[in-house]
């Protein structure tokens, strides 16, 4: 079954690449807007043999990893505390609802004024954006706790810590995992956006340079790199998720089908 799925997936991907080659060759779109797959691949190979490309990649990854780590730990800890302590959730709800939707990109001008085009600018954006993803998912998850299970745990005399560990955490974990996975993606988006708009060193800044110098195939090649990066991050997050949730319905269901 696995093998068949992989084969179907590979076929889908091959068709996608072939489409990318055929559409500009047939003249359905202009080649200078949308170069065929083979030209993008050539530009990609040039990039990979370029030392400065790898430095940029390293810069992007540093901003991403640092930001995500800070945001995820803060999001989980604060999320659990807020939903466990009585009244705290109600008291913070309005503030969270107000702060969360402030798009982190609104902070771009502030970051530029404060830190210029440094790593710290990017970190400010990344942490702010991904923190809410984790926090909200944690809150949603804790809310989903089965009341019967919670009452049962209470009536068996489990203390607050034990209930967090055995009732609340397993219920919230799938949500938290989704939150971290999405936060990982958002962190990458914001890291690259910060570089693209602010000009902090990294892949985003390279894309901006390629765009300004009309190097369309190089621009696409770099976009492919960001996609692959995002893909690796997602696959990594999924693997972690699957390991951590091996007992959960949505994961078990997939193996059984």
């Amino acid at each position: 079954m696995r093998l068949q799925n992989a084969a179907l997936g590979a076929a889908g991907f091959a068709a996608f690449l072939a489409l990318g080659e055929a559409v500009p060759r047939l003249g359905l779109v202009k080649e200078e807007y949308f170069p065929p797959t083979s030209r993008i691949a050539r530009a990609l190979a040039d990039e990979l043999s370029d030392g400065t490309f790898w430095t940029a990649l390293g810069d992007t990854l540093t901003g991403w990893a640092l930001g995500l780590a800070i945001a995820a730990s803060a999001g989980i800890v604060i999320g659990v505390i807020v939903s466990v302590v009585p009244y705290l959730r109600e008291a913070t709800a309005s503030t969270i609802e107000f702060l969360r939707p402030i798009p982190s990109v609104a902070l771009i001008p502030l970051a530029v004024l404060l830190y210029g085009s440094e790593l710290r600018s990017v970190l400010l954006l990344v942490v702010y954006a991904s923190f809410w993803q984790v926090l909200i998912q944690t809150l949603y998850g804790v809310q989903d706790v089965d009341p019967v299970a919670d009452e049962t745990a209470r009536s068996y005399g489990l203390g607050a810590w034990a209930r967090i560990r055995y009732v609340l955490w397993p219920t919230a974990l799938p949500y938290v995992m989704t939150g971290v996975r999405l936060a990982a993606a958002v962190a990458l988006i914001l890291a690259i956006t910060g570089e693209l708009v602010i000009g902090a060193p990294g892949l985003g800044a390279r894309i901006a340079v390629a765009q300004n110098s009309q190097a369309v195939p190089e621009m696409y090649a770099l976009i492919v790199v960001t996609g692959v990066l995002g893909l690796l991050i997602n696959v990594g997050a999924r693997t972690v998720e699957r390991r951590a949730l091996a007992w959960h319905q949505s994961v078990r269901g997939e193996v059984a089908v």
Partner: protein
Amino acid sequence: MKRLLRRLVLVLALPALLVVVWWLASDGSTDVFWPPLRTILRTFPDVWTADRLRDDVLPSIWRLVAGYALAAVVGVAAGTVIGSYRRVRAVCEPVLEFLRAVPPPVLIPVIMLFAGIGDTMKVTVIASGCVWPILLNTVEGVRAVDPVMLETARSYGITGPSRLRNLVLPSAGPQIFAGLRQALSLGIILMVISEMFAASNGIGFTIVQFQRSFAVPDMWTGILVLGLLGFVLSVVFQLVERRVLAWYHGLRASARRSP
């Protein structure tokens, strides 16, 4: 009455406290980048006049709503199809994963090539970014429909649209809404970014204008406006969610009440 009062206090206490802290901490601040809250609030009505609301805020909201709606329709429809058929999912998944993994803002230069720098570009950028959380969550939600319910529906001969309307979509509903909520914040991000790139109006454009001219208090009012906008949109979203998922919240509440 007493309960209402208590709730009101709970809702307002922390924001009030934070504002007071901000007010006191920034009062008399001579740091150019952190002007006193007093100054920011005094600047606010001068900056966000009726003209500016009409010329900058409305176009932004229009782009956001259009892009978001497009993403929601496409995401839920495609997600339902992909989530329902294992084979389709197997074929599409790698490509979707790849497309989803591309950070949407890097598509702005590409979409600019095709769609110019007008509203089409911004709506496309917003839609192409928002669609992924919705699509992903719909797929997950549809996939996690209770197998017993699916079997039951099958044995009762409930198929086609009625199965979709009465079983699959409601069952995936909470998860779809989680995706829609995530897409909302992504949508605002993309709205602002696309306006920072190339625009002659819009909230993002205005804020960058202020930053470049070092009009720091004005820039702060812009951040406040974005916060307010995000807040209002999220309240609207919550009202819609309460309504659509009333049965789900009711179920939870009744399960919670019963001993």
